[in-house]
């Protein structure tokens, strides 16, 4: 098969999609205010410097990206009408939409794209530094064309061009002064469907309809108010009464979500997190006995009853798993189910057998060895998960003492000092395994002091090589095959025990339609959302 990966999306295709969206179906109405609950209050609205969750929930309504995505994670046109990836994968040409204006009335051009990627995202965006590392230049032959020159192919880059991940900034506003501390961070100017109006600290951010939005007839809503309510119970009550209309991530605890679900005016949506895909993992300190023994790690993987954990700790909002890549990647072929299945009914027996073989027989008191398990200090369910893990380990003869510390101390212990036996965490897969999965077990990510990376300090030259190949492999099938092999090896070697995918739940007022229409969920622009 010839390696022709020259993808041309005809400009007309994008326009067709657009005009379809723009023709209002009978029921769709203009007007209305959507009240969104975001928890906690964002520290800034500069989504180009902070990837903190609440920042993205607000800024994604203000900034557009070059692309949007459908639920299969396939790119759709946005500010870029069409794009072409050269055969060698080292040149990507974007044809930009004309007639797009920023909220201050100035036109959007290729210079803004160049500025955004070269001067901002590549330099100060926490993930952009990695994602766009291969981008050496953005050329602007004319105002409607931006050509990305890459050192090596970076197919994963195409998954990171949404308005949430890579917001396009106006050069004329942000090029003056230090971008890290820019005054316009908190009075943002973008091309998105909603304009920033006011941020009353501790209370709300008000965003009003952008009448000049480039998608004709959109957005439908007049206003979005993002409210900040500190108390969990009050948040649930506001949704129950219809004073607030949408809340996602952990803003409402799972047991309250269950209660709200029964109300006639509320629906629970679990879609819209496909580009995040958090996977829960038990971490083993693989440089330390007894976790340097693969059989011990496998035994513990077998000992966790995934169904119990999901049903009783995450109240059903989860999906059992064995490997690092979320099943949300199934449509792209990157997810593989062909791995060791640790989620078996006789898991405890298998675990006991493995520990016997590993040379840790039960002593007179029934205990094989004693360890310390560090509870993830993220709140209730993580505490219960720690307590459950202690009990699961007790069943296979491992005595685990629990330790509970504040987030900063815990992060330092796990990712800087490596002074731990076992802990748990969850990493977001993000838009591509290169962005969200490699960091957990690639040797390049054994970096003391950097959090949410390879804290288990496990790697092999072989898996490193497979991941490096997959990083630059432009052919989707070959890429999938490389990841299938990576998954098979790491699941068997179990440097981490992946237990389940968390399904976040969005609580949504039923009067609002077409709110969650992309894999980015609350991180999308809500341009098509409307009120009955």
């Amino acid at each position: 098969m010839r390696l022709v990966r020259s993808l041309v999306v005809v400009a007309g295709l994008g326009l067709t999609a657009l005009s379809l969206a723009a023709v209002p179906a009978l029921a769709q109405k203009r007007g209305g205010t959507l009240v969104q609950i975001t928890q906690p209050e964002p520290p800034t609205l500069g989504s180009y410097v902070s990837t903190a969750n609440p920042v993205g929930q607000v800024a994604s309504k203000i900034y557009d990206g070059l692309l949007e995505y459908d639920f299969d994670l396939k790119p759709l046109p946005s500010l870029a009408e069409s794009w072409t990836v050269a055969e060698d994968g080292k040149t990507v040409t974007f044809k930009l939409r004309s007639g797009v204006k920023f909220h201050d009335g100035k036109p959007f051009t290729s210079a803004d794209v160049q500025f955004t990627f070269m001067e901002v995202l590549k330099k100060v965006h926490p993930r952009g530094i990695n994602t766009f590392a291969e981008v050496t230049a953005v050329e602007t032959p004319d105002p409607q064309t931006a050509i990305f020159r890459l050192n090596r192919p970076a197919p994963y880059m195409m998954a990171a061009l949404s308005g949430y991940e890579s917001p396009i900034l106006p050069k004329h506003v942000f090029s003056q002064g230090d971008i890290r501390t820019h005054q316009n961070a908190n009075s943002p100017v973008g091309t998105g469907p909603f304009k920033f109006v006011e941020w009353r600290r501790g209370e709300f951010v008000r965003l009003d309809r952008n009448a000049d939005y480039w998608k004709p007839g959109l957005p439908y809503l007049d206003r979005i108010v993002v409210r900040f309510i500190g108390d969990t119970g009050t948040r649930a009550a506001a949704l129950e009464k219809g004073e607030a209309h949408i809340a996602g991530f952990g803003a409402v605890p799972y047991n309250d979500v269950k209660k709200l679900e029964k109300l006639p005016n509320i629906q629970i949506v679990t879609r819209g997190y496909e580009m995040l895909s958090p996977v829960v993992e038990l971490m083993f300190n693989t440089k330390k006995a007894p976790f340097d023994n693969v059989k011990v790690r496998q035994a513990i993987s077998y000992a966790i009853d995934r169904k119990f954990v999901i049903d009783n700790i995450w109240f059903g909002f989860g999906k059992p798993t064995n490997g690092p890549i979320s099943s949300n990647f199934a449509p792209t072929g990157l997810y593989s189910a062909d791995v060791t299945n640790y989620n078996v009914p006789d898991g405890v027996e298998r675990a006991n057998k493995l520990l016997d073989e590993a040379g840790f027989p039960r002593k007179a008191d029934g205990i094989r060895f004693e360890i310390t398990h560090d509870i993830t200090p993220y709140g209730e369910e993580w505490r219960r998960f720690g307590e459950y893990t202690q009990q699961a380990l007790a069943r296979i003869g491992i005595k685990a003492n629990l330790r509970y510390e504040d987030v900063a101390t815990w992060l330092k212990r796990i990712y800087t000092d490596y002074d731990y036996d076992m802990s748990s965490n969850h990493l977001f897969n993000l838009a591509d395994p290169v962005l969200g999965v490699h960091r957990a077990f690639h040797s390049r990510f054994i970096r003391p002091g950097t959090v949410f990376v390879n804290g288990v300090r496990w790697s092999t030259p072989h898996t490193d090589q497979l991941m490096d190949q997959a990083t630059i492999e432009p052919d989707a099938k070959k890429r999938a095959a490389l990841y299938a092999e990576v998954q098979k090896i790491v699941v068997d070697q179990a440097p981490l025990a992946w237990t389940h995918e968390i399904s976040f739940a969005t609580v949504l007022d039923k009067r609002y339609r077409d709110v969650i229409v992309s894999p980015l969920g609350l991180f999308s622009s809500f341009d098509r959302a409307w009120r009955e």
Partner: protein
Amino acid sequence: MTSSFWIRFLGNPRVLLGLIWLALVVIGALAAPLIAPLDPFAISGKPFVRPMDGFLFGTDSLGRSVWSGLVHGARTTLLIAIIATLAAVAFGGLLGALSGFYGGRTDNLLMRITEFFQTIPSFIFAILLVAVLSPSATSVVVAIATVSWPPIARIVRAEVMSLRSREFIQAAVTLGERDFVILFRQILPNALSPLIVTGSLLVATAILTESALSFLGLGAPNFMSWGFMIGAGRSFLRDAWWLVAIPGIAILLTVLSINLVGEGLNDALNPRLRTP
């Protein structure tokens, strides 16, 4: 203590009620492994089983027995409260005694230190200490003792100061007794009654502090305690009332009992209330 003390003390019906409940709690705590053989953290049944449905007090969100948690929690709560109180009484008592006995500069210095501790809001200070020391049984004891000793020091100081000028102490001084002997043989035994009353009430405060710390998730992570049970159950208040109500009632009754007994002690020991 004379027999008239015991009559006045035990003749008080409120004291008797308090003592009966405290006796039950102490017996429960001592006999915990016998009357609730399950590890309180063990997942021993289905989650959210209602009370009296196979489990005396039902189960929590993970299927852990609430009864087991209650009696093992009594152990933790009592043990931590008593040890912390003893530490506070020993430290505060010593400081207060030295301060009251020597007076002058020593008194000035020690009382300024005491006031320094008294000005910090005690619960916030306890949270801070536990957070800094990282939660464990020892750090909870240290935190409670650290925030509890100042009142003891002040009471002991006042008692010692008033006794210091009595004739029998002056006699002892004249006889050439050493300071140490005077303080511990002559003065402290006479200052004991207010110390006992304050100390007993301090246990109640210590129980509340320990429960509040555990409620916030800052308790000793490997020990079941009443505050922890309430903290873990509070999100389910509307679906599973017993998770919060049962340990809550246990804390209420225990603290109330200690207060009743403490007040009874005060009444019985207070010479002004004695009938001639």
